[in-house]
């Protein structure tokens, strides 16, 4: 019996049955088909607990949502304190929480002048795209093939066919896609002088974190300037110290016109996201500030939490911890690759963002993910490149836990090998 007070389930199977019946049959069945029978129950720090009570170390972090781990006590206490005083608030009026957070965000984001809030990344991306269209009076948007910016009206159109065609939401005439790391293709797309913005994840996450080639982002930035387009940095997965700097674009030494932050900004406990705009992109805030409205965008509870998130990230201990975890993972993965070179073929890394490559084709990372799952580690494959395992250590990971992760990784490799062999036989 799983009694949660408000609702209860006789068994895990009952939950699966109801999830299939009322919630999402395909997603529920998919995980069962790949051997991951996870229903996340309790969660704490970098640990998830399945309904069965089994503990998993979380290296998925939902793209950095749980950057600080689950229910970080300092954030929980912050939210509880805020709940005794605030609620979502009234978006029509200026508010202390929104003013304080926007000031703080602008201060840590050189070149930016305003913060516009939303409840999630996709809506913040829509704000970014609309702001660029406003500022340039152009309509077209360029993005990267296999890029990912969310699922709202405009943001989804920048992404993969898988997410647009099914809903008839693709708009190929306005949304142009070019291959990543191909500067020639980028110039081709921009040179018509009719592009409002280029939107780029600083490192494309859902594509498995392929790293931008040296100078690529800089060249893209320069092309935008040359052809009058705005550069939008999607920092949803690369921001908030995950590259070792507050924002990934700082780590690559470029200056965007607009940037988007989400996921981790919420501390994993109260949804909030923001589009940061430079003076020009923020022009509409002077002309008609109610042109974009969001009732729960910039909810004051979220603002208080996000303010604490930024405050925590600015502690020197956090930056130092990111550097240490970065180094540990680099050295550890080099060693693992030497030991398991038959299946583990490459590492992409920037800070605590890693993509682990298993082979050169196929969907090997699905099997590796399952082997790790069986060994108490939860790391997800890249949706758009399933030979790459996303490996996303949290910024506060400790020395002891890092060692445990590496020991479990090592122990899981024979099982991964076994699953890969079995899969090969089946084919």
């Amino acid at each position, binding site marked *: 019996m799983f009694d949660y007070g408000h609702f209860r389930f006789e068994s895990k199977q009952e939950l699966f049955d109801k999830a299939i019946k009322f919630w999402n049959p395909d997603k529920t069945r998919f995980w069962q088909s790949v051997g991951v029978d996870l229903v996340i129950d309790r969660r704490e720090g970098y640990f998830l607990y399945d309904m069965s009570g089994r503990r998993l170390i979380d290296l998925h972090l939902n793209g950095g949502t749980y950057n600080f781990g689950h229910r970080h006590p300092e954030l929980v206490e912050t939210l509880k304190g*805020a709940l005794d005083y605030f609620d979502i608030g009234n978006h029509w009026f200026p508010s202390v929480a929104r003013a304080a957070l926007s000031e703080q965000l602008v201060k840590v984001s050189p070149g930016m002048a305003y913060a516009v809030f939303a409840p999630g990344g996709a809506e913040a991306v829509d704000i970014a795209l609309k702001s660029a269209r406003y500022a340039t009076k152009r309509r077209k948007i360029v993005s990267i093939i296999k890029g990912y910016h969310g699922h709202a009206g405009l943001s989804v159109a920048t992404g993969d066919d898988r997410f647009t065609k099914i809903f008839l939401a693709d708009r190929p005439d306005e949304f142009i896609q070019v291959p990543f790391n191909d500067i020639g293709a980028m110039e081709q797309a921009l040179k018509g002088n009719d592009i409002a913005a280029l939107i780029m994840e600083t490192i494309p996450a859902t594509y498995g974190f392929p790293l931008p080639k040296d100078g690529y982002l800089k060249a893209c930035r320069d092309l935008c300037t040359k052809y009058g387009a705005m550069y939008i940095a999607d920092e949803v997965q690369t921001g908030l110290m995950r590259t070792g700097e507050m924002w990934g674009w700082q780590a690559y030494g470029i200056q965007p016109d607009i940037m988007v932050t989400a996921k981790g900004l919420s501390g994993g406990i109260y949804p909030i996201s923001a589009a940061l705009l430079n003076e020009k992109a923020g022009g509409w805030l002077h002309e008609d500030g109610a042109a974009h409205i969001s009732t729960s965008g910039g909810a004051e509870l979220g603002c208080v939490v996000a303010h604490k998130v930024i405050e*925590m990230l600015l*502690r020197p201990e956090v930056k130092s911890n990111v550097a240490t975890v970065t180094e540990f993972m680099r050295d550890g993965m080099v060693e693992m690759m030497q*030991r398991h070179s038959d*299946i583990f073929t490459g590492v992409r890394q920037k800070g605590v963002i890693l993509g682990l490559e298993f082979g050169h084709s196929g969907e090997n990372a699905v099997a590796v993910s399952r082997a790790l799952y069986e060994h108490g580690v939860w790391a997800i494959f890249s949706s758009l490149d399933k030979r790459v395992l996303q490996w996303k250590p949290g910024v506060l990971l*400790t020395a002891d836990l890092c*060692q445990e992760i590496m020991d479990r990784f090592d122990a899981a490799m024979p099982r991964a090998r076994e699953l890969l062999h*079995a899969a090969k036989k089946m084919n």
Partner: protein
Amino acid sequence: MTDTSAPRLKMPDAGLEQSRMMLDKARWAAARMQKLDRASVLRIADAVAKAGHAKAQSYAEQAVRETGMGVVAHKKLKNEACSTGLVDLYRHEDFVAPRIHADRKIVELPRPAGVIFALVPVTNPVATVYFKTLLALMTRNAIVLSPHPQAKGVCADAARTLAEAAKAAGAPDGVIQVIEAPTIPLIEQLMGDDRVDLIVATGGPAVVKAAYRSGNPAIGVGPGNAPVVVDDTADIKLAAKRIVASKSFDNSILCTNESTVLAFTTIADRLLEALKAERAHICSADECAKLRALLFTDTGFNVGMIGRDAEVIARTAGFNAPGAKILVTPVALVQPEEKLVREKLAPVLAFARVQGIDQALAAARSMMRKAGQGHSAAIHSKSEANVIAFASAIPALRVAVNAGCSLGASGFETNLGPSMTIGTGFAGGSSLAENLTPHHFVQFTRIAYNKEAGEVFGNYAGLDPLNLPKRTASPVSLAVDNSEQALRAELRKIILEELKAVLAA
């Protein structure tokens, strides 16, 4: 809203949270420190000691300025002894390499403590920062220093200086950290934190008890209250000279300082004269009464008088003692109810007459009954019989002979090992009976062979855990497909069951 009102929102304690992050950082540093070889460790320790030594004078000045306690020149000496002096003393001991004991068929692998949480007292702030930090570094530990709030400025400065030197010499980031804004609740929280491997508590009894209560391994030490016997075989002039020098050293701020002289009656007057010649002021009964009233409050020693100059104390009490290095207060009763025979971290020395060694023992035991158990004592004597009788009868774990107690019991002027942390043993509420040395910060994994003569001990010479021969790690591909094997086993089981059923029919 006025400045004094509380914030409108309830908030987490950011100071505590940030300190917890410091502990995590220290854990990383400790893990990385343990991968360093001896040469690197010594290079770091040398760099840190040198940086500390270079600032011995300025931190001595700063400490006296901030705390109002002690004597700059003496603090400088302690800072020097606890920086380069300390490293030179332990330089030739190896806390890194495996120790091979072929005769016992045992190999010992050093295992550093990890993260050491070190409390720093107000009395010896900089010397303790130096001392504990270097002990930690030489044994490959990380240290988080928690200074007494009244000495936090100079301690934080000193810790930062050492940390920068350590980093520049190749130590991992975070190996030396300091709590910049210490409060009692914060320190108690951190002492109980799982991220701490060992607490080293030097300070008042309350903080030592809290360290032991924390649930973490701890080394805490109790207060002193040292009797000093001068018998009829002693060189009286030399004894007087040593006693005054010791009692005036840093204005008696070391917990090993002499509390009460127990002088054999036959030499007592000569000793008083000799003390006077060394610039001790011998107080009248009236002056003793004034000192008693000044130095002891209802709750204990008057902290405002800790480590003050003798002249200042006299003046505050209401009399003059121009040029005095110490104040000697003759007492008739050597029992805890006579406040003047209690511990005095100030240059005030009680003086009592005893008939002989037996009365000296009884008096020493009596005065130590309230405080000072397990700590220090001194004796000036040429009689081995008296020395051993004294040392065996009183509850002290170190007895300095013909040496000042301040620097003798703390190991600077004896061969006990210079220490800012003096173990007071079980009697004194401590797990530590000796003066704290680097040995207390490292434990060992013991590889132990079968005792049987036929089992030959291995050759471990030259094997270094930090630099083992490379293990060739060619991945083994699984030739046998386990899933197929499992299927076959299942089939075999089904066939067997079918057969059994057929046979049973």
